[in-house]
């Protein structure tokens, strides 16, 4: 992990305009989907984007996949601006960056045979010679645990887990350097999930890929990710190596999130931080720290007025947090997870 990051997000922002007006729409505001997100993803590493629905994690994934263009900021893949590349470089990018989506029932074209689904990336990018395609498909199918002869079948002939394997195979076919995983197991049955998670882990070693994973399940995140970025209302509130984050979450929101997560055993008693209310509307997000409206540890006006910056912890340069608790009063360190709050 000492090489250059594969993917760099610099102050990436995505606003969607909200319009009003009868004939000529006026923009009356913006939905702040992604707000100044900066992060790096190293080679061979899994970065998980965690947060509740509407926090911007999926939009971030879409920005990386060029399904959306950023309002401002820059995404760099191997040093190139992702949204500026064209021609051959674009084709290269398309083969280097692939995605696996949440719902295996919707992510496979029901009208195409497995072979065509899997080989599509190669075909549209003319990545390899025609004769080679079949070999590549065979290899990648066997890598994901499917039989070559199944490539003649249609997706509906497979179960959910198998379909997700097909989706993975079609992402792997171009031997990508980065795989964007959008909730890759949450639509699967419990007994299938671990199969697929293990498969992802195995493939990462086999293909030396980086994963950018969007997830809301913390167990999955802990199992899969090396690094976790927690998002709230479009902003990154905490970014840290997995173990460091799970052992000692710093941001009050992260803490609340962890406390809300379900225990894996009835005997595990966890302090409950029940957040009041719901996530505010992203159209008119709260001023200052956007979490201040629900924060049980709000320290005063500063939270309402100033937006905290994502800064590394002095004791752990890998662990970044955006909270005034840690910048204003460095003496106070409530992040041990066993506080006295209710």
């Amino acid at each position, binding site marked *: 992990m000492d090489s250059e990051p594969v993917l760099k997000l610099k102050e990436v922002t995505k606003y969607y305009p909200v319009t009003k007006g009868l004939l000529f729409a006026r923009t009356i505001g913006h939905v702040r989907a992604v707000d100044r997100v900066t992060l790096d993803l190293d080679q061979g590493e899994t970065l998980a984007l965690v947060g509740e629905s509407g926090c911007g994690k999926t939009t971030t994934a879409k920005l990386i996949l060029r*399904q959306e263009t950023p309002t401002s900021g820059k995404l760099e893949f191997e040093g190139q601006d992702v949204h500026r590349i064209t021609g051959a470089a674009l*084709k290269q990018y*398309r083969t280097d960056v692939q995605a696996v989506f949440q719902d295996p029932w919707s*992510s496979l074209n029901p009208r195409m045979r497995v072979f065509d689904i899997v080989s599509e990336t190669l075909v*549209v990018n003319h990545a390899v010679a025609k004769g080679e395609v079949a070999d590549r498909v065979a290899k990648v199918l066997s890598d994901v645990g499917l039989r070559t002869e199944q490539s003649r079948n249609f997706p*509906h002939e*497979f179960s959910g887990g198998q379909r997700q394997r097909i*989706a993975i195979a079609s992402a792997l076919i171009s031997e990508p350097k980065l795989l964007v995983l959008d909730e890759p197991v949450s639509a699967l049955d419990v007994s299938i999930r671990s199969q697929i998670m293990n498969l992802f882990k195995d493939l990462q070693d086999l293909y030396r890929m980086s994963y950018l994973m969007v997830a809301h399940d913390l167990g999955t995140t802990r199992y899969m990710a090396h690094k976790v970025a927690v998002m709230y209302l479009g902003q990154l509130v905490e970014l840290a190596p997995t173990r460091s984050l799970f052992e000692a979450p710093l941001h009050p929101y992260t803490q609340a999130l962890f406390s809300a997560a379900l225990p894996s055993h009835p005997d595990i008693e966890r302090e409950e931080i029940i957040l009041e209310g719901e996530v505010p509307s992203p159209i008119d997000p709260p001023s200052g720290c956007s979490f201040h409206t629900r924060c049980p540890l709000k320290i005063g006006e500063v939270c309402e007025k100033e937006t905290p910056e994502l800064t590394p912890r002095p004791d752990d340069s890998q662990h970044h947090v955006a909270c005034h608790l840690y910048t204003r009063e460095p003496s106070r360190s409530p992040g041990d997870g066993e506080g006295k709050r209710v």
Partner: protein
Amino acid sequence: MTDSPLPAVRAVGAGTRKRPGFWRGLRRLPLIPIFVLVVLLIVPALSADWLAPHDPVRGSIPDRLKPPVFFGGTWEFALGTDRLGRDILSRLMHGAKVSLSISLVGILAGGVLGTALGLIAGYFRGLADAIIMRLVDISMALPSILLALVLAVTAGPSFQTIIVVVTFVLWALYARQVRGEVLSIRERDFVARARVAGASDFRIIVRHILPNAANTIIVLATLQVGSVILLEAGLSFLGVGIPRPTPAWGLMVADGRQLIVSAWWIAFFPGLAITLAVFALNLLGDWMRDKLDPRLKEV
């Protein structure tokens, strides 16, 4: 993770299951409508030239207005003859060809045009969508029958005129339906996946969206065959349908309607043929909708 109350349904066709046998599959087909259509439409349409006992266009005056065989007629003219002494049965058989070809050509033309525009509108959205949908509105608001009348008095009634009218009536329907379908398909993940893979818009439309909208289009087409036959009949009634002496079913009913008292068979049999054929087509369309596209509303 959805837990359907009918757990069985979701996993239909899961990889391990065997396909149903040929005969078992056959039994599930709607046999009655298929039988009716084969006997009434398809066989006559394909074989009228060899099977029809008489010339459908040229009659013999001495044989005019012969009743059907069970009403005092002879087997030579099983369903009787019309005012020009033409054999109704032969005309019906040839009429099947006419009805079928009008329906097929019209639906093909309207379907292709409407589907293309619907794909463009639904896929690209924006200005193209706005323009196409306004055109749809306009075409829906314009009374098609007036267009037919105008065309008929302008260009004269002909096969082409009918096709133009059918196309005009159908395209907007297809455009709207296909657009709706595309709007939902383009949100599905496999389209996103194709985009990520770098597929061009054209490829996405042709390889990903069109095949998935195909069921809708096919079902719509099946349901339309019947209404096109009825449309042809209505136009013939107004005197702007298929030109004489072509044996078109609608024209036969329209021509025979005056003699409904004294020579009821002239209009009755083609009327019956239309009713049965459309009936069967609707049944078949219903069945196909249930099979292929349960989401498609009754149209």
